[in-house]
């Protein structure tokens, strides 16, 4: 039994999961499930949102370990669910190591929705959230536009590897600016409904839910760091739109808010 190969595969599976936004306890579970189902005597892992540490001991008593630093995190719920499925199948069906490695490679290179679909989806989401929070049909069309702009911006900014907080601040600023401009030109009616609806795209929903789920599972390090992430994201959005609002009130007066 090749322990270092098993360690490599378990680490690879964990890395894919953590990068896609999985909870840390799920990543730890997956890693130890893969290791034990291949007959490794002792496998322990410590996962935080930014890195993985694994250490395994084989039957002869040799211990090897691996550290993986996760720098880039996105939200890809499909990958989490596929890696989870795979690890359960390893338990039940005794798959070969070659097969698992190939399957993980396939999962990593899975097709995502095209950029055009993403832009369309976020435009729809922003528009209908504006309707949901009480905007009228004029606000709906403004939000459709803002949703598309925010997504285009965040795709372009993440391509040049800008950090998440800057993207959120820019997104918040752009949304508020377009909303203020549209209401002052008479295209939209309620600035607040437009801004709330379109900023829902940036709100840290994943960080909040993962912070709660990690804390329940007893992962205090992961729980607190995700809480900090959620708060910082919210503050970044508020700073972005706050700057635009302050400047607007200063130069054009508060008549349109």
């Amino acid at each position: 039994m090749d322990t270092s190969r098993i360690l490599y595969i378990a680490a690879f599976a964990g890395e894919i999961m953590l990068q896609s936004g999985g909870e840390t306890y799920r990543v730890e579970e997956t890693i130890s499930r893969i290791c034990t189902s291949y007959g490794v005597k002792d496998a322990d892992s410590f996962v935080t949102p930014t890195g993985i540490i694994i250490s395994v001991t084989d039957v002869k008593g040799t211990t090897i370990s691996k550290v993986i630093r996760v720098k880039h995190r996105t939200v890809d719920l499909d990958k989490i669910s596929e890696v989870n499925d795979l690890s359960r199948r390893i338990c039940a069906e005794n798959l070969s190591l070659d097969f698992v490695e190939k399957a993980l490679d396939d999962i990593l290179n899975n097709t995502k929705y095209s950029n055009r679909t993403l832009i369309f989806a976020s435009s729809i989401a922003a528009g209908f959230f504006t309707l949901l929070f009480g905007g009228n049909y004029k606000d709906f069309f403004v939000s459709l536009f803002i949703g598309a702009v925010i997504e285009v911006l965040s795709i372009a900014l993440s391509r040049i590897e800008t950090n998440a907080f800057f993207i959120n601040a820019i997104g918040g600023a752009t949304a508020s600016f377009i909303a203020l401009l549209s209401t002052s030109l008479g295209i939209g009616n309620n600035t607040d409904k437009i801004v709330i609806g379109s900023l829902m795209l940036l709100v840290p929903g994943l960080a909040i839910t993962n912070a709660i789920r990690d804390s329940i599972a007893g992962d205090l390090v992961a729980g607190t760091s995700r809480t900090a992430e959620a708060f910082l994201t919210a503050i970044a959005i508020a700073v972005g739109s706050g700057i635009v609002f302050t400047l607007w009130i200063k130069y054009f007066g508060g008549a349109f808010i």
Partner: protein
Amino acid sequence: MIGNILLYSLYSFIATFGFAIIFNIKGKKLFFAALGGGLSWFIYLISLQCNMTNVLSFFYASVVGAIYCEVMARILKTPVTTFIICTIIPLVPGGGMYYTMLETTRGDINKSLSTGLNTIIIAGAIAVALVMVSSITKLITYKKRKK
């Protein structure tokens, strides 16, 4: 009135559907994740209609939404997170955050503090609901495993 509630739930369904695409959910899970968003907003509006307070309505909506997620995750054999994130999205207090920011830029500290506190209380209600449902689910599945 009920027609209005259903219309707003439909809005929530479509908005959550857009979110589910952004989060790269595929296949029939996409539909059920979006349905969770519609359901949670429906419960929120219904309990507001029954004269519950705002915070309590958020709490009930998250409890029902979370139960829906736990059940669907077991039926479709997917991690619970896939559904929970989409179901909770409409309930995240974006409006509260916005008004807190607005009052802060206007310089009204009292109002910004009270709206900010209210927002945190709503977020706390959602968190408590998620903790409760997930812990009770663990109790139930533990009992099943023991049998």
